C-alpha cells in the first residue's frame, strides 16, 4: 500500500506529547501504515522520546522533556512520513491461543448460546475459525484489542457489568473479542478461558504479543487446560507461533 494514501492530523497533546491522528478507515492497511510510521519515529528520536503509544487510528508521541518548538517538531514528524514508497509488509507471527470452552470454566457459555439461538459447538467453531489481528494493547496491562470477530457473534455488552471476570477469561463485548489478562470487572460475555498469561511484570517486554501479530483461538479440553497451567507454573511452557 502507498503511504500517501493516509492523511494525518498533527496536534499538540500536552507539553510533552504530540498526537498524530487520521480519519482513515480502521483496517489492516492502516495498522501497517501506523506500525511503519511508529517505527520510523522510534528510530529517528530514539532516546528523546519515552515511547509511541498506538491505538486504532492514532500515534501519541510522548517526549522525555517539554517540547520547546511544537511546530518544528510537527514538521520533523511529517518528514518522517513524506516518502511515497511502498510499505514493506513483514511476515506476521500467528499465535495459537488455547481456549477451554467447557462448562466448568465458562459457565456462562450456555446462556450466551441460548441468547444467540445457537448451540455451543456453533459458537466455538465461529470463535475459533478467524485469524484475529492485534491492533494495540491498552485498557488493562496486556489487554489486546483484537479485530476479526465473526458478525454472528456480535453481542451488546451486559447492562450491568460483572464485578469480577477471572484472569484468562475469553469474552465477547459488542463487536470485539478479548482476553482478560487479570481479574477485572467487566460487561463482556465470558465464553471460554485460556491458561496463558498475557502479562508478566517480571519481564522487560511484559506481553509476548505485539501490535500487528495475529491470534487464533484453539479449542482445548479441560485436561489439556490443566496440563498447560501446570507446565506454566513449572515455567515449562512457551506460547507457540507460526510465521505467516
Amino acid at each position, binding site marked *: 500500500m502507498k503511504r500517501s494514501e493516509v492523511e494525518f492530523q498533527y496536534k499538540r497533546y500536552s507539553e510533552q506529547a504530540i498526537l498524530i491522528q487520521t480519519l482513515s478507515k480502521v483496517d489492516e492497511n492502516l495498522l501497517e501504515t501506523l506500525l511503519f510510521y511508529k517505527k520510523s519515529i522510534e528510530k529517528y528520536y530514539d532516546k528523546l522520546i519515552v515511547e509511541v503509544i498506538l491505538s486504532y*487510528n492514532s500515534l501519541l508521541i510522548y517526549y522525555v522533556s517539554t517540547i520547546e518548538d511544537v511546530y518544528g517538531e510537527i514538521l520533523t514528524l511529517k518528514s518522517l512520513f513524506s516518502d511515497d514508497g511502498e510499505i514493506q509488509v513483514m511476515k506476521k507471527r500467528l499465535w495459537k491461543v488455547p481456549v477451554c470452552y467447557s462448562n466448568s470454566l465458562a459457565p456462562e457459555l450456555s446462556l450466551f448460546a441460548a441468547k444467540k439461538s445457537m448451540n455451543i459447538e456453533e459458537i466455538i467453531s465461529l470463535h475459533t475459525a478467524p485469524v484475529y489481528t492485534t491492533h494495540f494493547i*491498552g485498557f488493562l496491562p496486556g489487554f489486546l484489542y483484537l479485530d476479526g470477530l465473526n458478525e454472528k457473534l456480535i453481542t451488546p455488552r451486559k447492562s450491568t457489568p460483572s464485578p469480577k471476570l477471572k484472569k484468562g477469561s475469553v469474552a465477547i463485548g459488542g463487536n470485539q473479542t478479548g482476553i482478560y489478562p487479570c481479574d477485572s470487572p467487566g460487561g463482556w460475555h465470558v465464553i471460554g478461558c485460556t491458561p496463558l498469561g498475557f502479562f508478566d511484570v517480571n519481564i522487560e517486554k511484559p506481553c509476548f504479543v505485539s501490535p500487528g501479530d495475529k491470534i487464533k483461538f484453539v479449542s482445548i479440553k479441560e485436561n489439556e487446560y490443566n496440563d498447560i497451567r501446570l507446565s506454566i507454573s513449572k515455567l515449562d511452557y512457551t506460547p507457540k507461533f507460526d510465521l505467516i
Partner: protein
Amino acid sequence: MMSKMTLLSSGMYTTIQDGGRFGYSKYGVPKSGAMDLQSYFLANAILDNDKKCAVLEWAMIPPILEFEDDTVVSVTGAICVPFLNEIKQKMNSQIQIRKGDVLRLKNVTNGVYGFVGIKFGFQSEMLLRSRSQYNEITSLSSLRKNDQVSFKIVVDFSTSNASLFTPPFWGKKDRINVFEGPEFDMLTDHQKHQLLNAKFSISNTRDRMAILLDGLLENTLSSMLSSPVLPGTVQLTPSGRLIVLMRDCQTTGGYPRILQLTKESINVIAQKRSGESIKFDVL
C-alpha cells in the same frame, strides 16, 4: 545497611510512589507516580536525594510511622503539622529520626495528598523500572496497618542543615491551565463557552485514577474509537459530566478528550478537595 519503617496505622490510600512508570503504556500499563509531582520532587530535594527516589504518599488521613533506625525524612504536600514523639516539627524541612521514633502528622488543614520522603528513598520492590504501587504490577496495591517498608540507615547527619525555598502551597489555586484536547473542536461554540466560563467542582468520586467533576456540560458528542489518553486528560462522558484522568489512569479511552491539563495543573487539581471549585483557562 537496611532497616524498616512500620505503619502503626495505615492512613488512607497510603502507597509508595516515585516519578512514575514510563515506557510501558504500549503494554497497557498506567504511568502511576506521585499524585502531586511537585510535592514529590520537593520531598526529595529537601533531603538532597536523587529525584527518582521513592516516597510515601497518603490521602486526607495520614499514617503513623515508626522507624527502626536512624534516618532523615521530609514532609511535603497537604498542609499538616508533623510531630516526632509528640514534639512539633516543620513541614518542608529535614526531620532527623532516631531509632524507635514515631512520626505523626496532625491537623491536616489543606490539600489532599501528603508525602513523606526519606534519605535515599524507600527501598520497596521495583517492577518495570518503578516502585510506584499499582494493583496489577506490584505485589501490594497500597499499604495497610503493620506493613513494613525498607529504607537505608543514615549514619551521618552532617549534611542535614540545608534549607530550601518552598513556594506557597499550590493546592489553593482555583485556575486550572489547560490545552485544547484533540476533540475540543468538535464542541459547539455554546459548549466551549460553557466549558471555559462555568465553574466546576470536585465531586466525592475521586481516586488515583480519576477525578469526577460536578457540573454538567451539554453533550452531543458520541463515544469514539478507543484512543490514547494521559494523566490530565479531561474526558466528556455521555452523561455530560467531566472526568479528569489522573496518574493511575488507563492508557486508552473512548470518551472525547476535550481538554488536557498542564503538568503543573495536574498537581494543583490533585490537591483540591471535594466541593472546591475550579475554572479552566485555555493557554
